[in-house]
């Protein structure tokens, strides 16, 4: 019994300590960002491996999610004779919710896990220590560019996801189910609000980008430096990111659209 309480306490202390380390890590990254403006090529390289390599997955997923939305939305709307509003339904679902959330979940699985594995491997092969001893700060040289790349990539990927998804909805709605294309696009344009919908969606995906990249980098940096440890850290990145995305999405949605 005592032992159970004790181990609970140990676990609690350990978690809080780790949380503290994670925040210090973030602060150090943020302090390294200003000098990146002088060496933006480092960020460009990472934009490729973090962002560009995820584009294909995002496009395919966006297309299918959009097509499914088109099918499901049509079935519901047609009962009310409102199938002309299919465009609005698809675009609002994507721009407000599914775009940021689903692309963030995919981003965590694709780019987040890759980041953790990469950093964890660099740690376990002493590359990070080696850099420190060459007087190169790995947080500034390795972490900061990846962090910025994640922050920039995520909203762009979410935008691509939503755009492709809307087109997927259009393909199904107009091509397959015969919704009038003029009505589809014009209703969408009228009812989708620049600030209320699009900007809020972008804001969400920026938040998700920061959180996923932060989790991924920290898990790698904090991994036990063995192959097993890196494997576990990679899993944790995906799981923790998913929780963080879904939890934050609820909070952000409540703040943005709840009132």
């Amino acid at each position: 019994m005592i032992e159970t309480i004790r181990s609970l306490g140990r676990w609690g202390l350990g978690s809080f300590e780790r949380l503290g380390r994670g925040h210090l890590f973030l602060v150090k990254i943020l302090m390294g960002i200003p000098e990146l403006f002088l060496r933006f090529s480092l960020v460009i390289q990472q934009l490729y491996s973090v962002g560009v390599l995820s584009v294909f997955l995002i496009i395919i997923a966006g297309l299918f999610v959009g097509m499914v939305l088109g099918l499901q939305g049509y079935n519901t709307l047609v009962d009310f004779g409102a199938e002309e509003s299919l465009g609005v339904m698809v675009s609002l679902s994507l721009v407000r919710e599914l775009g940021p959330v689903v692309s963030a979940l995919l981003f965590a699985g694709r780019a987040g896990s890759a980041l953790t594995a990469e950093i964890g491997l660099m740690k376990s092969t002493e590359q990070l220590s080696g850099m420190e001893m060459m007087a190169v700060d790995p947080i500034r040289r390795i972490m900061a560019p990846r962090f910025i790349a994640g922050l920039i990539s995520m909203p762009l990927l979410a935008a691509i996801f939503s755009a492709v998804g809307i087109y997927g909805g259009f393909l199904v709605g107009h091509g397959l189910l015969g919704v009038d294309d003029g009505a589809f696009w014009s209703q969408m344009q009228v009812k989708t609000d620049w600030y209320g919908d699009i900007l809020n969606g972008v804001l969400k995906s920026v938040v998700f980008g920061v959180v996923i990249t932060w989790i991924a980098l920290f898990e790698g940096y904090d991994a036990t430096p063995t192959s097993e440890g890196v494997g576990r850290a990679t899993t944790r990145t995906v799981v923790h990111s998913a929780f963080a995305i879904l939890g934050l999405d609820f909070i952000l949605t409540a703040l943005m659209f709840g009132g």
Partner: protein
Amino acid sequence: MPLIKIRDLHFYRGDRAIFEGVNIDIHRGKITAIMGPSGTGKTTLLRLIGGQLRPDKGTIEVDGQDVHKLSHRDLYELRKRMGMLFQSGALLTDLTVFENVAFPIREHTQLPESMVRDLVLIKLQAVGLRGAHDLMPNELSGGMARRVALARAMTLDPMMIMYDEPFTGQDPISMGTLVNLIHKMNDAMDLTSVIVSHDVAETSEIADHIYLLSAGKVIEQGSPVQLKRSTSQWVQQFMQGLPDGPVPFHYPGNTLEQDLLERKDAV
């Protein structure tokens, strides 16, 4: 004045003492070896000297500066003048041999590309791997990787180099190459070398001074000749590589009878 001055060093991992009152002087221009059985904390000592770990008590001075009182920036300035060769080589796996050696130059200087190229090729020539400059680290043997790492550690012309187990896991030929290289570099470039190792024969061949560590303390020091003549049984056991002696073969614990009996009780 010694280049590195370690005084009353204490360091703990949890409750376990790694160092309890270690004093070491490392003199300029010399090759100093720090030896001891695996797990005594030789790598830990190098990390303490490099400022990657912080002692629980005691001080480490490098070139007159207390490593653990320096600001982040000053510590990084000091590290530019300290080279370190990790056991694994610690080459950056996504860069070629050339780019690995060029890495410190590119990070710390604004030299034009033609000069970077000349510098890198000179360093690679010194370790005999100029021809390998296009290879990736995973295409190198262990000995070659260490030589590339050595070339990289030399690029900023440091005042000292610390070698972590440079000879472990090397075939006799690359072992000989490394021994020669370390010796040659030390003399030609007016370096101070610190070799951490448990390979007695190779290390005593080139070391000017040896410290023997065990159980958190320096138990003997002196020139290789002095150590070989030492009357301490422990030193003799270590220098000659005898399997049992004052350093027991068995990890401390219960006696065999106790463990067997306990087992029987539990069943």
